[in-house]
């Protein structure tokens, strides 16, 4: 009611005064709750493609609930291979000068703070940083090479300008004339109903799903279900993309290139992983479409690295594969303008992975599989296509540590984020969002996942580390 009273609605628009007041009111709330401060600058991987808006003349909101998150129509468009299906999708119909490229970046001010850090002067220092800054940059090209042949190429940089390929694939759509047969080849995002690449959070702590990247203490597995992987995907969908499936065969490198893993390490093998998803949407009248997606990922990682040159492991020669899996479900539920995104994941890493032991060595007493569960509930309220309020509560709980001597709570995470995005400019050429977010994470005995590697674990494994982010900035996409 308070928010509503601040708004002066007329002709479906918000008055300047109302818009200004809502900005300020929410920001004040954020400031007042900034009790725990954080510190690193994330590389944002969230995506939207105004190149498509320019190609088809549709506003951002046609494909996005709030960009970059896809709505029903955007999901169907993506599933069709970036095609509307009106016989004008092939580039032969475009002006020869049309170039399907989009650039996205976020100038910002942000404040990061983490406590329990070991510095030169203290073992439990609270480190706080703040200032104006830049995010990384996406330079995304995507579209169709011909009717029913689509592609995506995404060179993405961190905030220093160091580039990597976030994705690069070719997709053959509607094979044999069937929308149930689409084959993707290359480096791509897993078919997650809740996409970390398209979500609405940007801060160092809130700008990632903890569950998508969490690895227990002592575990050498590098897999994250939020990491883009390299391989092939067979996928299909019905006409409105309410029913979908995806089967992926992926190299066991966590999306690394040059036969290395995603961290640039040579400790890789020649095994393959599998990922299975099935999505079903249920229209529920006024409420919208309710989607659920069970998923299952089964993978292997090598544990023996005997072949070396000059002492360096030769990539993709690892042996002694040991398995792991992730299983759970995701959802995308609507209650009118209110969206709920539930996620649950059960994870299990083989004892050899959990303890970093080569497969040709004996397991010692106290070693066991690492098992954990996690999940989150994220909610969005779409006041209008140009204003969305966000919040997310996320937990990770260790169920069984790789070593029985490890404290049972070490690695547990509690995270909470909230904020809003306001799109003052949203039309068929480009987009601009005013983004304000606060995020706080409590992780026990580990370096916060939001850290850039410079952080340190607390002095004891049972000490909680609090890390927080406050960010406001202009997120623009052209």
């Amino acid at each position: 009611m308070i928010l509503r009273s601040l708004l002066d609605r007329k002709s479906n628009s918000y008055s300047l005064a109302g818009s200004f007041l809502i900005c300020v009111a929410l920001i004040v709330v954020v400031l007042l709750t900034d009790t725990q401060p954080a510190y690193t600058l994330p590389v944002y991987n969230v995506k939207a493609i105004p190149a498509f808006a320019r190609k088809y003349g549709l506003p951002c909101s046609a494909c996005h609930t709030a960009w970059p998150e896809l709505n029903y129509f955007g999901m169907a468009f993506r599933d069709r291979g970036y095609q509307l299906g009106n016989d004008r999708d092939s580039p032969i119909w475009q002006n020869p000068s049309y170039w399907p490229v989009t650039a996205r970046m976020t100038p910002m001010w942000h404040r990061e703070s983490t406590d329990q850090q070991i510095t030169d002067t203290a073992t439990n220092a609270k480190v706080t940083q703040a200032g104006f800054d830049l995010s990384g940059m996406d330079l995304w090209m995507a579209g169709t090479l011909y009717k029913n042949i689509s592609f995506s190429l995404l060179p993405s940089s961190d905030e220093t300008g160091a580039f990597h390929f976030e994705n690069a694939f070719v997709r053959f759509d509607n094979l044999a004339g069937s929308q149930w047969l689409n084959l993707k080849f290359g480096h791509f995002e897993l078919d997650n109903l809740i996409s970390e690449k398209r979500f609405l959070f940007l801060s160092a702590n809130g700008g990632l799903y903890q569950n998508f990247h969490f690895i227990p203490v002592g575990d050498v597995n590098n897999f994250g279900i939020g990491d883009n992987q390299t391989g092939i995907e067979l996928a299909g969908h019905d006409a409105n993309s309410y029913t979908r499936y995806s089967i992926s065969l992926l190299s066991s490198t966590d999306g690394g290139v040059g036969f290395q893993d995603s961290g640039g390490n040579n400790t890789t093998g020649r095994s393959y992983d599998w990922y299975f998803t099935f999505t079903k949407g249920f229209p529920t009248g006024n409420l919208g479409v309710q989607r659920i997606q069970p998923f299952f990922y089964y993978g292997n990682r090598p544990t023996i690295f005997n072949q070396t040159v000059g002492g360096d492991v030769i990539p993709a020669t690892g042996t002694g594969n040991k398995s792991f899996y992730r299983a759970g479900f995701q959802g995308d539920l609507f209650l009118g303008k209110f969206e709920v995104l539930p996620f649950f994941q059960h994870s299990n890493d083989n004892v050899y992975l959990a303890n970093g032991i080569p497969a040709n060595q004996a397991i010692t007493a106290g070693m066991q599989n690492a098992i954990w569960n996690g999940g989150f509930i994220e909610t969005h309220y779409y006041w209008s296509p140009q204003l969305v309020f966000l919040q997310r509560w996320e937990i990770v709980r260790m169920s069984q540590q790789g070593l029985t001597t490890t404290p049972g709570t070490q690695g547990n995470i509690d995270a909470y984020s909230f904020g809003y995005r306001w799109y003052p400019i949203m039309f068929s050429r480009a987009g601009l969002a005013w983004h304000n977010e606060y995020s706080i994470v409590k992780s026990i005995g580990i370096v916060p996942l939001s850290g850039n590697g410079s952080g340190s674990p607390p002095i004891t494994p049972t000490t909680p580390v609090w890390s927080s982010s406050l960010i406001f900035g202009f997120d623009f996409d052209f």
Partner: protein
Amino acid sequence: MKLTIKAASYFFSGFLVLAFMGAITCFAQIDHNITPYTKTMTSNIHGITGRAYGDGQMRPDVGVQLFRRYCVGCHGPQGNGEGENASWIDPKPRDFTVATFECRSTPTGTLPTDEDLFDSITRGFVTTNMPSWKALTVQDRADLIAMVKSFSPRWEKDKPGTPITIPPEPALTIESILRGRQNFDKLQCWKCHGPEGHGDGPSASTLTNDKGDPIRPYNFSTGTRFKCGATNQDLYRIFMTGLDGTPMPSFADVVKPDEAWDLVHFLRTLQVSLKTPELALFRKWVAAHPGQLKPIGQEQAP
């Protein structure tokens, strides 16, 4: 809550900075002031009521928000087809203020039914910028139809026409195809669509719609589906109702139902990119009867 000086300084500096940034954002905002003729229009799709504006109870302003989300870029906030993107689109977006619609089940000159508009939104229009909106829920599409109807006073004055009756399709025969071919010639369909159905008849380059915009006749040889559907029934309906607002007239007064079905069967033979049964039958007959077909449009040629 006791505010320390440090906390107060945080608060004040943060307030100033954010207020400044927020003010910039506010002044930069682009609004779409959607201005329909009426806010009371509804639609009915298979028992589901669509509303452009809220009913004062559970549902907010649904249709207008959906229109703002999906449609305003092309059709414009006034619904007159002059959205920000219209100048780049060919063919131009529909002008809802005149309430003239091409794809209908109702006679020429009448308003379409809600189901006609629902089918159009669901199907989209091939070779145009209007996509299929099937991914939206039925309720959303019903709300959008109510919004489309809100832009013209005609919906308050007139009622939709009565859908035409489409008789059962007779069996496909070569005689039916050949009769259809004669009608295609006699009715001078070829003048626009061309003798081979390539959309290159002698009048093709002169055609405009009611707004004066150039318009191309349908090219049967490349099209996988028609603008107003893909089935034989859809094709029958198209030339019995006409495409209002375009040079394509209704032939309901000059063509009998059997003749219309003959024409449907022949038009299918023009879709050479598809393997239609009509085309197979026609090609078989032509191979067995070389030189017996008179070229279409020959008598009218100078």
